[in-house]
């Protein structure tokens, strides 16, 4: 599941409240049947929290840190050593377990923080912006790790990167200014966002016939040149009436007109569009 919202929407605040770091002013938070205000210890035991900005004790080594986290989470002494080993293995920290955390790169720090959250076998993992500040390779690694973890734990993730959300999550909650604007699966949200039936096309048009195409093909509502490229190709966005799929017609007709198609794409609404639509709707 994912928490998604613009900066300052209240993602981190919500997470801080669920984990018991700050108290809520009104309402109640129930985690796994327990109220956080009444049974904080029980709730906190269920949750593994990776806070924003990866706070770590930089003077400790990786292993010391994970062991410390296991201790404060009251992992049974007999199995503690094994469990710490297992988590270090799982998060790929075996090679650096004896290094001081301050000497590690950002990506590794992120993993250490995640290892800290994972220890103690929490039912719910709460990750606040887990991929911020990483390079693309590290991002892929962390995402794969999260996907892997999603099989065993309930993962609640906060993010403002959309591609991440659509890749990892099964359910999305979009919040804006502290209010929920949508709860749904990423696919459904994408579907809802499709508003226009539109085709994007890149063509080479030496005789400038594209302007006349609107009259020749039925069903075109609007045609617009969006960009002229350096290699003399032009990009157009063509809007169709109703539900007509223009691609086949365009392909045949443009060939007759001696216009070469370089690229053709049907507009696909992304989560981004869904997001923009919801947020704008909320602001109005």
């Amino acid at each position, binding site marked *: 599941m994912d928490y998604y919202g613009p900066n300052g929407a209240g993602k981190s605040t919500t997470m801080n409240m669920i984990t018991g770091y*700050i108290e809520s002013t009104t309402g109640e938070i129930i985690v796994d049947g327990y109220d956080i205000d009444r049974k904080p210890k029980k709730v906190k035991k269920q949750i593994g929290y990776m*806070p924003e900005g990866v706070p770590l004790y930089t003077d400790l080594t990786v292993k*010391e840190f994970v062991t410390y986290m296991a201790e*404060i989470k009251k992992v049974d002494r007999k199995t503690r050593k094994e469990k710490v080993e297992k988590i270090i293995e799982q998060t790929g920290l075996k090679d650096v377990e004896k290094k001081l955390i301050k000497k590690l790169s950002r990506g590794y720090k992120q993993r250490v923080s995640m290892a800290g959250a994972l220890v103690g076998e929490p039912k719910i993992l709460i990750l606040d912006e887990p991929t911020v500040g990483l390079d693309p390779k590290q991002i892929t690694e962390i995402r794969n790790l999260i996907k892997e973890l999603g099989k065993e734990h309930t993962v609640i993730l906060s993010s403002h990167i959309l591609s991440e959300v659509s890749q990892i999550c099964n359910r999305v909650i979009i919040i804006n200014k502290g209010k929920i604007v949508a709860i749904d699966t990423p696919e459904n949200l994408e579907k809802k966002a499709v508003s226009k039936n539109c085709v994007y096309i890149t063509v080479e048009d030496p005789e400038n016939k594209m302007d006349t195409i609107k009259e020749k093909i039925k069903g075109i509502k609007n045609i617009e040149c969006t960009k002229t490229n350096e290699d003399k190709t032009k990009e157009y966005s063509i809007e169709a009436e109703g539900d007509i799929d223009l691609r086949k017609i365009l392909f045949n007709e443009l060939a007759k007109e001696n216009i070469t198609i370089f690229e053709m794409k049907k507009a696909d609404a992304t989560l981004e569009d869904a997001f923009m639509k919801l947020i704008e709707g909320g602001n109005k």
Partner: protein
Amino acid sequence: MWAVIKKELKQYFCTPIGYVFIGIFLIAFSVSFYFTVIGYGNVNYEYIFYSTPTIFVLAFLIPLLTMRSFSEERKNGTEQLLLTSPLSITKIVLGKFIAALIVTIITAIFTLMYFGILCYFGMPQISTAIAALIGFILFVMAYIAFGMLASSITENQIIAAVISIAFFIITWVMPNFNSNLQSFSFINMLYKYTSGQIDIADTVTFITFTIACILLTIIVMQRRKSIK
């Protein structure tokens, strides 16, 4: 709670803080030792705890020990790890307090070597030495508790240190300005211990003050949850 103590001690001794605390205190202690024993020919181990160089370095060393306890956690955000763990705030505060106290006790144990030296050359009194050690530990304990309170109200370590140094110096020079305050002075209480008297009233004062500071620290931490 043991986990917090262990981690704090690790941080004291993985960074220079622990060594600086013990080292500088022992240097000041040695200077006092030189003046009292060699300069005046006194066979007094206990008096050194009350000497000006020792008290003077303590004014700066105790804040060094306590200034980072909560400020640093808050600044780095590691406070979130602690407060979202199943540990109660009371245990976190006590853990940090006990860790700082252990560093003090280690220092006190190191000073015993001066007692050994005196034993070799003369006949120092064991009973007053024990009273002085107890007094010293109680005295430092009170200031550690206050230092932690100072650290819990700010995320800036320097401010935390300045507050606790100021408090130390004020309580140090206070009796010189008004003789009515004599009986409230921690330094005067320490003096009584170093002269061999373990006064119940003084002991209770130290312990009450320590407990009050720890309770206030716990309250500050608890309150911060709802103010953020």
